[in-house]
């Protein structure tokens, strides 16, 4: 057997046999640990789907350990049209998703120290510092990340990704595909979309060369259909929280978004969201809430504070507050309406140019206003995220407008999505508590 065939066999084995075995073992250990322990706290009963979510993501990362040399590997930004890479058999790695995992596990300061020692500024996005730190040190909660054959970067989420991925390209010495999306004022102009479409067509050429395969048009249509179905299913999951009580919390949503980010355009992703949607709808029918006693409904803007997500949501849930919608999780649901399987490249250009972070303030206000109304919220917390300037800029104006137009209470909360050193827990808790007290 040739070395590449052996690697491929190992990759398949990891995905089909060893991975599922490992996942079952972990689930068994978890059940053993929890046996007999009564569930307390302000949250409703846990979602059954969580088990499947853990299996899915563990399997994805486990199989990824054996991906290089077996299948082409692409490292991609969260707003990249990954479905275009699916027909070529790429294993996609999302450094942002991986960095969020590092954030939850509170290992960002150590990884950041490593790159700060190389001269990177602490003012850089903590996702970028985490990823570059993980590359520099080899430390990752995933065990191992496969080496990329291709770097795919789209500027629809920020400009930092451009410099970050250039640093990765320099390190790994692999091709970097850059998709530059012009900032949208109002609605994207036809020449903007043509510019993005041209770059996506170029992406296909580069990705074909790297993978050594050709994109079959029908396969691309199929991957696009799956991506659209996935985002639509995700939108259906989120929409269940329009009911009272919301069957889950916005914080649950932050964790359950992992497949739509990292596995978009795959059947595994869609199967998972069918399961989750059905469970959420069932909870709605049975009146089961994400928070035991839902008294107040809130909107969350911006990324989560990954390292303190549980503390923040518990503090709020104890007083009956629930984040029933978040602009961040909604971003992956918005795209669905613009994706058209009949026109994979053209519709991807339109969908991915109109990502929330690539839109002007009036459009962002429109999205927040719509979410606030549809989910009937009484207040909003705008996370001013030190690491994500494009998301945080304009929030003072958004705060004033939301409060004035909708008559809701709005809090600006300073923190960071990954680096606990930029978060003052006592002060943050104090602001959130004062905010809740203002509801009477």
């Amino acid at each position, binding site marked *: 057997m040739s070395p590449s065939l052996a690697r491929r066999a190992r990759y398949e084995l990891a995905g089909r046999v060893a991975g599922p075995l490992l996942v079952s073992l972990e689930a068994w250990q978890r059940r053993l640990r929890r046996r007999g322990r009564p569930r307390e706290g302000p949250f409703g009963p846990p979602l059954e789907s969580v088990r499947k979510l853990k299996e899915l993501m563990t399997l994805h990362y486990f199989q990824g350990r054996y991906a290089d040399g077996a299948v082409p590997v692409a490292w991609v930004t969260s707003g990249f049209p990954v479905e275009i890479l699916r027909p070529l058999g790429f294993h996609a790695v999302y450094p942002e998703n991986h960095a969020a995992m590092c954030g939850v596990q509170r290992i960002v300061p150590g990884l950041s120290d490593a790159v700060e020692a190389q001269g990177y500024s602490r003012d850089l996005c903590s996702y970028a510092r985490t990823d570059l730190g993980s590359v520099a040190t080899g430390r990752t909660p995933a065990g191992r990340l496969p080496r990329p054959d291709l770097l795919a970067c789209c500027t629809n989420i920020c400009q930092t990704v451009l410099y970050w991925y250039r640093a990765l390209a320099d390190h790994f010495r692999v091709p970097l595909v850059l998709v530059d999306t012009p900032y949208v004022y109002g609605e994207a102009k036809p020449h903007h979309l043509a510019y993005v479409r041209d770059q996506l067509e170029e992406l296909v050429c580069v990705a074909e060369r790297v993978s050594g395969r050709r994109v079959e048009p029908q396969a691309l249509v199929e991957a696009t259909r799956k991506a659209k179905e996935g985002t639509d299913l995700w939108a259906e999951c989120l929409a269940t929280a329009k009911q009272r009580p919301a069957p889950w919390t916005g914080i649950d949503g932050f964790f359950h978004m992992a497949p739509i980010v990292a596995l978009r355009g795959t059947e595994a992703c869609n199967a998972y969201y069918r399961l989750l949607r059905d469970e959420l709808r069932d909870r709605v029918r049975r009146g089961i809430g994400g928070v035991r006693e839902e008294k107040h409904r809130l909107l969350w803007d911006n990324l989560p504070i990954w390292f303190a997500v549980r503390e923040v949501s518990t503090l709020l849930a104890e007083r009956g507050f629930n984040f029933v919608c978040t602009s961040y999780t909604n971003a992956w649901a918005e795209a669905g309406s613009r994706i058209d399987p009949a026109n994979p490249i053209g519709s991807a250009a339109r969908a991915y140019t109109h990502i929330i972070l690539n839109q002007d303030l009036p459009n962002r206000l429109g999205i927040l206003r719509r979410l606030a109304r549809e989910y009937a919220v009484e207040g909003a917390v705008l996370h001013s995220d030190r690491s994500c300037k494009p998301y945080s800029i304009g929030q*003072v104006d958004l705060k*004033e407008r939301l*409060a004035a137009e909708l008559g809701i*209470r*709005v809090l*600006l909360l*300073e923190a960071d999505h990954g680096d606990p050193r930029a978060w*003052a827990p*006592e*002060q943050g808790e*104090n*602001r959130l*508590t*004062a905010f809740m*007290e*203002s509801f*009477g």
Partner: protein
Amino acid sequence: MSGAVAIGVDVGSTTCKVVAVDAAGRIVAHRVEPTDPRIEPQVDRLLEAVRAEAGPDAPVGATGYGRKRVRAGRALTEITCHARGAFARVGCPGVLVDMGGQDTKVIRIGAAGEVLDFAMNDKCAAGTGRFLEVILGRLRVPLAEVAEQVARAARAVPVSSTCTVFAESEVISLVASGEPLEGIAKGLHQALASRVAALVRSAAGGGEVFMSGGVALNTAMVAALGEALRRPVRVLPEPQLVGALGAALSCAAVHLA
């Protein structure tokens, strides 16, 4: 005995305040002391003193950064308590600027005394009483004399740094270059006032501006803030006690209900 119905404790970063209120919401006894790192024994001692004066049975409400260290029936944030205390004092909506040692709060108070919005300085001493304390300490200007010195200044010497540590170095350079101390002190007040004014604007809203907190006792600061806002600033009576008063009133409302 003065018939206290509730006691409010406000454990701030600089001072610890305890007040007792009667059924009409009047302060019938109070104590103010620099905050001791050993919060519990200090609060117990102050409570004992206030109870001896105002009656032994009143329930306790706590606020301030040290509120979790107080054995109280009700603990609320400083935002809620300052709004409540200020509204009890003025009886009308408006914007409250509370300048304490550790932070500066701007609270927009509604027609029923409720908190409509608030903003606080974040993770930085610039814009707080501590900023003035540190820099004036470096200038050897006692807090009791600062207003008089600022009033004497022929002109304000601009201080551009907004960070306490950098401002201290800047002030040292200004002193070394022969700038008059009064002018530097005035410049400091203006720098601080411009920061607080930005915070006031971020919490938006019109109406009268009130001031509470220990820094409100510094008339130079009140004047500088009024100039920066181009609006009159009204200092609440006993400005240091407003938070503790609010804690006592909130506690009394629950207890009497």
